[in-house]
């Protein structure tokens, strides 16, 4: 089969820039109205960004995780909701690429995902499991080659806009809660009954409503690899890397706004360093730490990919630390920028406004709560037998 490749003649960087510009243009109304960033996602489709990570032999461009992280950061700087939609979509795409190639149905979906620029959402939370990704109550019910699944999901981000929803469930009705599989439900074969509405402090455009989800399909739609392995081997690491990149983008734009304000002050008072300039430098320094940590973790990820037998423990610890560090520090950076910008930052609708950034970045510590992540990292540290530094 002939690789589809990008139909547009522009470079990836140019296509990303175009989507970022659209995301920025609509960020205010997406936030104000708590609506899906439809224009930005349409621009991602036009730039063929949704299928960019699919390997060339399946029609995509084989973009690396570092390239995806960079797109997340650029989009996040313009519109955190659009950036997070892109990140969550790519996490599901990575699951499909990593774990679905053994299934003919999944291979076909991958081709379609590129050709039609499909958008993927996930239903990994469930009422009654206390926010634990690694437990399910609902179970796949198989009848021959067909299955049905019913799940009560307190959050399915952009579920109504997605072309497919990746849901976790117990393997069968007799399986223990931790024996999970990941199932791909196509939008035209599932029903979403909304029971809570996402009216939140920030990340308002992710439309993370709660749903009673019912779907059906054929056996090939159940990813062959156990979800426990998917989570441990790739999904958790990819999630933390791409989310962190979105947050770095939000913090980066806050610093850019504060920097523009301080520069404008400097122009009004030639010959004197604005009093807020050192504070700006401090925020910039923390932003560099965020970016440095992400870059180091991306390098570790590539290293682990190249050596599949290597320890997964150090990598897991590094990714846990990444999530906690970036989610905490990005909030501090945006908060510091607000102090620099003062009322100009506090007021909505201006070039130096930071309210949306501050509200959006407050989600970072909660998206898989840092307390839960630290408890999990604490367990890993109990079994680590080497000093907690890279050899």
């Amino acid at each position, binding site marked *: 089969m002939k690789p589809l490749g990008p139909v547009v003649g522009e470079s990836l960087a140019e296509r990303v820039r175009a989507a970022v510009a659209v995301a920025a243009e609509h960020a205010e109304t997406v936030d104000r109205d708590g609506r899906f960033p439809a224009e930005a996602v349409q621009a991602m489709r036009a730039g063929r960004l949704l299928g960019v990570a699919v390997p060339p032999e399946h029609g995509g461009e084989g973009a690396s995780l570092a390239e995806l992280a960079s797109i997340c950061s650029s989009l996040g700087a313009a519109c955190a909701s659009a950036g997070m939609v892109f990140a969550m979509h790519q996490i599901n795409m990575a699951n499909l690429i990593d774990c679905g190639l053994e299934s003919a149905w999944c291979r076909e979906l991958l081709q379609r995902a590129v050709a039609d620029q499909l958008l993927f959402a996930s239903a990994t939370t469930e009422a009654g499991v206390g926010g634990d990704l*690694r*437990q399910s109550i609902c179970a796949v019910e198989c009848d021959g080659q067909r299955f049905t699944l019913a799940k009560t999901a307190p959050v399915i981000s952009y579920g109504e806009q997605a072309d497919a929803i990746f849901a976790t469930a117990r*393997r069968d009705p007799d*399986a*223990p*809660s*931790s*024996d999970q599989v990941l199932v791909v439900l196509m939008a035209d074969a599932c029903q979403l009954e909304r029971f809570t509405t996402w009216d939140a402090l920030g990340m308002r455009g992710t439309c993370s409503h709660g749903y009673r989800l019912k779907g059906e399909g054929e056996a090939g739609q159940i990813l062959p690899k*156990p979800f*426990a*392995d998917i989570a*441990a081997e790739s999904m958790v690491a990819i999630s933390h890397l791409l989310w962190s990149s979105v947050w770095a983008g939000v913090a980066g734009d806050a610093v850019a706004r504060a920097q523009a304000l301080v520069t404008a002050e400097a122009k009004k008072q030639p010959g004197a360093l604005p009093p807020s300039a050192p504070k700006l430098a401090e925020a910039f320094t923390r932003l560099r730490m965020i970016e440095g940590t992400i870059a180091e973790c991306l390098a570790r990820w590539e290293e682990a990919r190249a050596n599949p*037998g*290597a*320890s*997964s*423990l*150090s990598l897991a610890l590094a990714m846990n630390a990444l999530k906690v560090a970036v989610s905490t520090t990005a909030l501090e950076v945006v908060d510091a920028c607000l102090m620099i910008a003062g009322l100009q930052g506090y007021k909505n609708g201006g070039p130096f406004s930071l309210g949306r950034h501050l509200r959006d970045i407050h989600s970072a510590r909660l998206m898989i709560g840092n307390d839960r992540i630290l408890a*999990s990292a604490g*367990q*890993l540290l*109990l*079994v*680590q*037998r*080497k000093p907690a530094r890279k050899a």
Partner: protein
Amino acid sequence: MLTETIRDLVAAHAGLPAGAVLEDDTDLYRAGMKSFASVQLMLALEEAFEIEFPEEMLTRTTFRSVAAIAQAVETLAPGKLAA
């Protein structure tokens, strides 16, 4: 017998549902062992056999079944199996 000891430790620490059938090749994760339980099991194994799992062995594969654990213990402490 090494396998018997491992079975006892699995029964005590893996947090499997009561009445779970435990064959040597039963997939412990599928049987319901969660990550905290796997950590407790690993610490108990280290204590019982006076061994230390090096980091490269701390993968899900090492603790997947009684047989896999026995193999790992045998690798780390060749004498223990015969004892």
